[in-house]
């Protein structure tokens, strides 16, 4: 490229300070407390005054148009300052309390829900899906839209016992938060990789491919003089790791791919230690564009939780309090052999005491 300017590298991101709202600078490190004025609206107070935050949803997969709409609102109501949250919501940072309602009105007119604070279902941490990733067993953005259409009411209110963090990932790589969320939807393959013996010898390194399998299902073999690999189908658990390192072993399979539902994970240290999400429903079909089976499964779980948990009790804490048998009872989900762990630490998940409910 023949540009006149010097080519810059390794400059890193801009310093954040230039993007801080003046009140953020003034109260930096000296905030006293915060309050929630209503769902989606926070007020943080320090010596230098109070900063108001209005939080709204975003599809995350956002066009430049959408972002410009948001910056326009920021220019109008928040002195041009806005931020994104760790769950892909948008936050407008307001010095002037009077701006809160007009801003919310405009957002509502644009059909953008305001909320996601405290005991709400916040935005869904999710991944690429059929929009961008070669690995996906399902779509992500579509699932999120379908699920959140049913849960918007829980986003704009704070009527749940505690936060409910929902995540979606389109394959076992779990680019996001599936393994530690209150409720998660995970795309799954259910058939072993199909080996393209034509291209494999050129595309893939055999030792890396063999080593990629967590269950030693892959062995080197020779077909017509060329070294390729073979998969022991009994040992394959469809994780897709081989495909990540070797493109000649695709797993995608329209007939069998689908989603599984997971529950009870958390990340915070509040009360209980962080927990992994556990399997609730091993398989539901891929049913685009609205995945009705997955959506109603998630909704059911959240509603049963909402009815039964105590205040400030996260999904996983609630389940531990009432016990897993009761969880399966209350939600009407069937318990099956797929729920029984058989991976590395399986032995530690077996009930090794008499502590059971009947």
């Amino acid at each position, binding site marked *: 490229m023949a540009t006149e300017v010097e080519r810059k590298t390794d400059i890193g*991101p801009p310093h954040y300070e230039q993007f801080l709202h003046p009140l*953020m600078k003034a109260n930096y490190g000296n905030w006293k407390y915060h309050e929630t004025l209503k769902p989606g609206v926070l007020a943080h107070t320090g010596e230098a005054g109070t900063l108001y935050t209005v939080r709204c949803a975003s599809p995350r997969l*956002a066009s*430049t148009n959408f972002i410009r709409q948001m910056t326009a609102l920021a220019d109008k109501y928040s002195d041009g*300052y806005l931020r994104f949250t760790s769950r*892909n919501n948008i936050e407008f940072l307001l010095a002037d309390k009077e701006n809160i309602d007009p801003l919310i009105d405009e957002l509502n007119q644009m059909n953008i829900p305001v909320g996601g604070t405290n005991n709400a279902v916040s935005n869904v941490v999710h991944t690429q899906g059929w929009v961008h990733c070669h690995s996906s067993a399902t*779509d992500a953005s579509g699932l999120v839209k379908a699920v959140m259409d049913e849960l918007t009411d829980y986003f704009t209110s704070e009527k749940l016992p505690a936060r409910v963090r929902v995540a979606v990932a389109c394959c076992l790589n779990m680019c996001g938060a599936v393994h*530690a969320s209150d409720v998660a939807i995970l795309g799954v393959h259910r058939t072993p990789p199909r080996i393209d013996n034509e291209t494999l010898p050129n595309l893939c390194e055999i030792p890396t491919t063999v080593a990629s399998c967590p269950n030693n299902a892959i062995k080197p073999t020779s077909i017509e003089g060329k070294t390729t690999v073979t998969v022991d189908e009994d040992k394959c658990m469809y994780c897709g790791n081989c495909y990540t390192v070797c493109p000649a072993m695709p797993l995608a399979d329209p007939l069998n791919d689908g989603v599984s539902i997971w529950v009870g994970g958390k990340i915070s*240290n509040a009360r209980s230690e962080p927990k992994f999400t556990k399997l609730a429903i091993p398989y539901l079909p891929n049913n685009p564009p609205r995945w009705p089976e997955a959506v109603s499964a998630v909704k059911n779980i959240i509603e049963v939780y909402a009815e039964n948990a105590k205040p400030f009790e996260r999904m996983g804490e609630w389940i531990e309090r009432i016990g897993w048998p009761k969880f399966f009872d209350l939600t009407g989900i069937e318990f099956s052999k797929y729920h029984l762990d058989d991976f590395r630490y399986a032995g530690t998940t077996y009930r090794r005491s008499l502590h059971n409910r009947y």
Partner: protein
Amino acid sequence: MADDLKIPLLEELEKGPWPSFVSDIKSVADKSEMARDLLRQLEKSYEDKRGYWKHGGLVGVLGYGGGVIGRYSALPEEFPGVSHFHTMRVNQPSGWVYTSKALNEIMDLWDEHGSGLTNMHGSTGDLVLLGTRTEELEPMFQALTQKGWDLGGSGSDMRTPSCCIGPARCEWACYDTLDLCYNLTQEYQDELHRPMFNYKFKFKLAGCPNDCVASQARSDMAIVGVWKDEIQIDKDAYAEYIKDGFNVKEYVVDMCPTGCITADENDIEIDDSNCVKCMHCIARMPKALAPGKERGAALCLGAKAPIVEGALIAQVIVPFMKLEPPYEELHDLIERIWEFWDEHGKARERIGEFIERVSLATFLEGIGLEPLPQMVKQPRDNPYVFYEEYYAEEDEGEDA
């Protein structure tokens, strides 16, 4: 116009109260062939229930190994607009704070060089620019750097660090997450841009144990703010909560995991020696309670998703470290960790899996840290101890 789109399945996703990514992509479909063909290919995926992307090749910008994810359509003739559809990961500012001006500038550049689509943000934290052609990568990169932006990580490198909003808007931050996030990003530009590790290495920085950036679940090194001394109590504010009818017994005392709070209508007391810094009581009464004054962070290693050896939650490796510029002690430790992992780790072995394989004791020895009981939930319960010092016949009675 976009009427030639024929995307009836996707259009089902324009209904309902939640913002529709379909409508949004459509809104740029006029000006972006990429967006148009993305919708068309996606419609086909919805029909056929499968993705149509090929494994990405090695594409990138000059001199960097990371920051770009290559992506090609498997059906380039049918959907030429997405025959190339690479993403660029732009390193976000600490805490995802922006001004309208800065964001608009990036949008302008992206309309010029790419699809007009983004992820705000990617799960690691980058401002993800979604979809462009190989030949646009370098121009876009140069345009970005001119405006003061740079790329983040991908591949076997340090990944883009991210942090919670911390001291910029939170009363609970126990160290300056934004500053340290910036510091680490700048300090390790080389590691960020040029993959030379065994595998990816992610940093996430949370100002307190609430962990609003999910660091303990999703980063190889989680830096989580915490305090060592007593929770600060404002008795007047406490009296206010009581006056307002707040049920301190049910919502605070009974929910403390170690039962170390004694409270009634008149007073609240905390046995801090038994407090595990869970934040629950503080979050219930932010006006009355606050983290202590001796603040710093715990360093935790090894969180990751399940591939290959199973998911891990980060484990405590330094229970408490003061974190103040220039952060030398921390840099030092990070470098010792990388060095040891580099030398003894296997390809595609995350640091958490590495520690499990070589054992925590060996790892600590390798990076020069003393074992502490805070590093474990419990001491070993099996008797398979590798005793190291033992007496030889000659030196009977003397300790080796």
